[in-house]
């Protein structure tokens, strides 16, 4: 019985690793209340993993009405946000704590 559970857990882990590997990952950095890159191109109709790294000592909130996402990222911390699958188009995002400067755009292309 124990062996079966072990084996199932192993297969589960493998599947997880496989699923993780399948998801394309993109990184955005926050420096001096600006997003780098300010425009990111991602593939259409694909679930994407965004890693947002906040290099500032102050907190920021990644927010987008179009992407329907919001997440607080503390100073010096990083956050993972899954987006998509999305149709081709432009999806703006901004930093809610510094909305004047922290502006960015996700461009979804086929």
């Amino acid at each position, binding site marked *: 019985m124990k062996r079966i559970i072990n084996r199932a857990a192993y297969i589960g882990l493998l599947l997880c690793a496989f699923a993780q590997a399948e998801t394309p990952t993109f990184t955005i950095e926050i420096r001096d209340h600006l997003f780098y890159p300010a425009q990111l191109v991602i593939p259409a109709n694909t679930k994407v993993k965004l890693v947002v790294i906040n290099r500032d000592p102050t907190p920021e909130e990644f927010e987008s009405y179009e992407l329907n996402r919001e997440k607080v990222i503390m100073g010096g911390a990083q956050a993972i946000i*899954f987006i998509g*699958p999305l149709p081709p188009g432009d999806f703006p995002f901004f930093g809610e704590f510094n909305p*004047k400067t922290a502006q960015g755009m996700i461009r979804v292309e086929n």
Partner: protein
Amino acid sequence: MVDAVLLILREVLEAALILSLLLALSFKLQLQFRWSLVALGAGIIGSWLLAHYAYEIAAAMEGTGQELLNAALYTIVILSLITLGLLFVPLVFKTPQVFTAEENNPAGIDKALASNSHHPLMYYLFIVIVSFSLAREASEIWIYLSAFANKPDYLSSALVGSAIGAGIGLSLGAITYFVFAFMPKKIFLPIFLAVITLLAGGLSLQVAKQLMQIGWLDSGAPLWDSAFLVDEHSWVGELLYALLGYDARPTPVQGAFYLLTIAPILLASLWHAWGVHLTSSSKHP
């Protein structure tokens, strides 16, 4: 400063509207208002704790702690709202006999309300709904203000902005309170029931959103896009978001969460409405 006004207003608005709605209900049911002080105290302490442990929370569960905790807080509020709604359904759909008894005896409606509303659960539900909503929303205010802790010039401007934002939020709450408190009793209960049902549904969209954000649920194409009608950026959009959880582009998963959330109160209402229909038709064959 304008940024601070808008940010604080957005965070405070939802909790202020929920608080006002439940205070209006307390007024209608002649309940004590003391619960609101407990709820506000617990909410503010809770929000501070959430902000204080924000790093640890965000890093927990492989970086999904913030979303999972938010989803849990939303879910507890939703379940409390559903319970509250179910306590009120029998009052909204009364049998015709009760109605005639009330017409003969105007105090009857108060008595009928009192019998269900003095349910011991009531105060606990109020406290949980307000304090949990406030804790989640207000924690972002602490985090936002912490950025200015070492910059006295910016801090004073941010604090003034925060005060103005909170003031506007509380004013809108006060307006909501008076609108509901001075509503005729006959229409108050059905409207109250409808509002908390929609509120619970709106919050369920947020639960789905949290789970999509950490990749536990798949987003899928939006069911519709009503941004051209009411933009979420607009004032109307923000107000609808705070009260009904308005989402211009809901996904199918969110739709399913919404229907599942409003189902208990909807089904209970249909059940009671059907019961009333049966008793009235058996009385007049």
